């Protein structure tokens, strides 16, 4: 079967572009994941929590302040400041 002149090349370019976008998203996700891990570590140490509990503390603060967990984590990891009350778990 005769293929359109631009067909396979265009498909490959689109595939490469999709993969590059996916790699970019994964890269950002890894950075976010890392900083959330740091924030959890800080909370675990500060309030003697498990990792799961530390995540829930971040979630509660996120809902309270209407800020994403990732953004909260960046602030906590950068400054070490935690303005929410000590968690009661």
């Amino acid at each position, binding site marked *: 079967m005769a293929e359109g002149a631009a067909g396979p090349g265009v498909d490959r370019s689109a595939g*490469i572009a999709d993969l590059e976008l996916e790699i970019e*998203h994964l890269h950002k*996700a890894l950075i976010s*994941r890392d900083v959330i891990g740091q924030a959890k570590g800080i909370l675990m140490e500060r309030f003697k929590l498990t990792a799961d509990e530390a*995540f*829930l503390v971040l979630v509660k603060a*996120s809902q309270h302040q209407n800020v994403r967990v990732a953004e909260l984590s960046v602030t906590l990891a950068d400054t070490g400041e935690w303005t929410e009350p000590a968690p009661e778990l």
Partner: protein
Amino acid sequence: MPHPEPPHELEDARRDVALSQDELWMRYFALGGAAMPTEFEAYLVGALSPAPAERDILVHALNERSMELGLARRWPYSEDGGGGGRREGMELLSHPSAYETARDRAAAARANSMRLAARIDRAQAVAGTTRRRAWLLRLQAKALRDQGAALRQRFDEGLLSTAPTSEVRWFSLDGVVGDEAVWARWTHGHLRCHPALMTQARLLVELGTTFEHDDPPAHVDATVTGTPAAVMLTLASACDRVLAVDYSREVRL
């Protein structure tokens, strides 16, 4: 007693916040979720029950998205009783019909897993080809930079002077026009040239292209019949990429 996840509750939630499974997984992964896409998909359709901590991450990905969209809807975390509340590990579904449903969904998840594996294989093949192409392009770019630097140095040293009295005993040039490899050879006062390169060079001549150089001052019109140095310059400019240039050094050009 904790109850199993209502079927499709998480999948319905995903649809409510208008995210694809891949997009939701990416958000879940960014929040620290540990399940790979296939397992994640099984969580969504109820084929597997996630551990509470994993479910909380998934639910939070949904809730952040809901917040983003300005929706009031929030899904409960494990401590609010979501997913049957806090319990250790995965649970087997006790009711026979639930078991059959779970078995069917597990089969669907396995089929999806195979599709994903095939997709990953294809992606890896494309990525491999892309890496090889990128490597070749980097290699070509480096060769061209080296060629360009050498040509500039010769020009700056006056070796490529294009004064009317200059002479080139011979030169050879290889390059690319479009996707075609082209070449030109000047020996004993005669030019032999690839037709595609000659067409391009004649176009430069017809367009009245000129080449300027400040130090030493030089002004050369594009030509395919003039001095060898001027012809060489015209042919090099006519190439989309110059791969190699060589010429005699015995006489000052």
